[in-house]
């Protein structure tokens, strides 16, 4: 199955389950190229890109499907907070960009989904987050 089909399938499954999907890029050497391809496919399917935790909170609030591509060595701690609280439908974090204090978003996890994109190396460097993850696809 090619990348496009696999991603289409993943979107369909996480969309129905209302869960967090995970795409793992196995080969570190091909990471950048794969990231681009995967992002392009997701964009094509109408899944928006969230660059940071604040954009993630925006999308959750709007109930819009999105993906988050991790660019640092391991999953961002604030993203881990969001992932861990996803099923309770409430995330509350300080707005570090606008310095406006605690920002809380409430949403229905059953009506939305999002997809994380990490390399195998990033997955291994990250804290325990698998228990909060739904379907996984690897490339």
């Amino acid at each position, binding site marked *: 199955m090619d990348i496009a089909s696999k991603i289409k399938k993943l979107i369909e499954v996480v969309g129905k389950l209302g869960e967090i999907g995970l795409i793992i890029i196995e080969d570190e050497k091909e990471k950048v190229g794969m990231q681009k391809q995967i992002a392009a496919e997701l964009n094509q399917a109408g899944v928006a890109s969230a660059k940071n935790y604040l954009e993630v909170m925006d999308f959750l609030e709007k109930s819009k499907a999105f993906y988050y591509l991790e660019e640092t060595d391991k999953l961002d701690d604030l993203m881990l907070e969001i992932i861990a609280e996803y099923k*309770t*439908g*409430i995330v509350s974090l*300080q707005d570090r960009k606008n*310095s406006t*204090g*605690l920002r809380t978003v409430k*949403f229905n*996890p059953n009506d939305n989904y999002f997809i994380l994109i990490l390399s195998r190396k990033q997955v291994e460097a990250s804290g*325990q987050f698998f228990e909060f993850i739904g379907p996984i696809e690897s490339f």
Partner: protein
Amino acid sequence: MKYMKNESQFNMTTLVEAEDVQVNKKTENPERKEGLSKKYFEEREDVCVYLGVEVPKGEGGDLVPNKSAFENYYLTKEDYILRREIATSLVLNKPLLLEGGTGIGKTSAVANMCADLNTNYCKVAFGRNTTVEDVIGNKDVDIVDGKEVFLWHDGKLLKAIREGGIAFLDEYNFQGSKIAGHVNPIIDAILNGYKTVSIPENNHEQVTVHPNFRLVAAQNPPGTEEGQEFPGREVLGSETFGRWAYHKMPLKMSKEMRLNRRKGTMGKKIGINITDSEFRFLGNDIPTSELIDIPGMEHWAEKSVEIIEMLEEKSSGAGKDMAKDQRQKLSFNPRLEQGIDRYVAKFYRGDVNQVWSDALEYFLVNMYKSDIDKEKVREAIRQSYYIPPKTESKRKGLDENDEEDEEKEKQDLIDRIKKAKGEIPSWIVGDTEDSSVKAEIETAPSTPEFAKAKLELQKSETEAIKKYFGKTAEAIEVPPIPAEITAEQFEFWKNNKFKLHYSPGIEIKKDNEFPGMKERLSDNIYEWMKKDDKGKSKINIDSAILPKGWILIDERPKPQYDNGNQMYEDDILAPVLEDLRKKGLIAGYKEKGSRNVSNDEFNKPEVKETFAKALKIKPEQLELPKAVLFNYIGNKSHPEWGNTNTWEWFQDEYTSGSRLNGGDSGNGGLSYADYASSGFRFDSLGFRPSVRFSV
């Protein structure tokens, strides 16, 4: 934010709902009666009710989760019980620490309840790299009137402390947490009862703790449990541990719970069976200082201290007898007793034994993981039941109202038996002297039908014995039914599921192979019969010999265990047992007519006399079956006795002070025999009367 009535999703997931009924007739608050509901969850305008426990709703806030997040969440029985326990902690304002595995529903329960209760949900995960800014708060530079100023922004924990809500401290025993150093001093101050807390991050601001602020914590077991490793978790010190009501939970969901949740989520209608005894209802919230005026409270205060001391001794030290499989050290300090007293004051509804049992179940039984430990605590609780002295006016016997009451009680008993049986034993309505039974026996006329029935029974029993013993049966002659048995007795026993069997008085040897012996007699019996160096055996050396003669035995199926609520089917002895409990001849129990009695209690002369009257026999004829007889009749006629997971007492004595029991399907059913102190009562242990006739 205000939620509308009946908006809750739980009304949809509550599959088995009883009608609103009054479940505790002893309540002293008639106003409360009207509100008693046996719905597993109920949302009203101002309260949410979790298996009876009413929790007032909060005042809302930014951190109240959306109810919609839990729409698809299917609740199992365990989920309802967990919510009841959390609800109890909230109404007692006693912090609750849940120790169990990951993914068993702790977080969902707290978040879900916050949504129901319209109160802030604040989760602080000690095991993650949660920042101080998010939890406590931070200062940011802002421009106010053209000047740069530092503005403080509350984190979620501080928000909940100021505005009310539930702080859920997850992975509470995680070592090396980055935020523990900031959060723990605040939590410690609250646990110590301070009304304000100091926030060093904001120039030591003194924040008043909102009266609706509550604490619930969760943790994985420290170290390794059931082969599962939980690295980085520490054993809490007794000072920290003692501040919480500690509930030990399973490491993972039971298979049944997993399946029910999956099937339920898929839309299958799963019946959830929550019994009345699993509901808790608040009482009048009596001031703790006034409890002592209530009969039985002083008794229980003393007994509970004895129980706690016993548990402390058995649950600590290297050679501890209890909590052996628990790494977290249990501690029992005065805060625990305060919590128990608060529970009693809040939940007392007129039944002193009930409220203390529930309180000690909540605070003590729940501390233990193994069912055996739990049962030991429950047994200690049951042994401590308060038996009120007979009231003075009853002793005088002159008070008109008391006479009326007694007459009413008697009539109630008769009505219940009438309803259950369609007939009334003479021992209740008529002359209660033994002589009347004797007279009935001696004067009852025989009839051709009775003679025929006796012959048929003799014949059928001969056939059954042939089937069981095979060739050995050739040497067995089944004698006629004893002449002392009357037609009336015969009919009465038949109607009440008692039947005569012939026991041939032969020895069942270890190596015997009889065609009907599907389940062999326990090897334990043969081991215990062996004599030691001093020539003594643990049980009588004739324990494998069947009694010789006709035996009348209760043929009812042995019930399946149901949390101690199981009853024997259509039980003629239920009203008798209830009456014996009323008279204080046997200890109280949650099901008043339950066969949950000790072997000693069964063998009390007054108790045997009462049973004998109810069964129309002589007291000296009544006994319990020997293990060998239970095995024999079970194999011959009642294999179903071995298919249920309850136990029954046997007549056999085991060394001093113990008696045999068995029958548990989980341990071998008809084959199984074990021993226990004859004074013990277990909620899985009942009895089956048997009656011997002269040969």
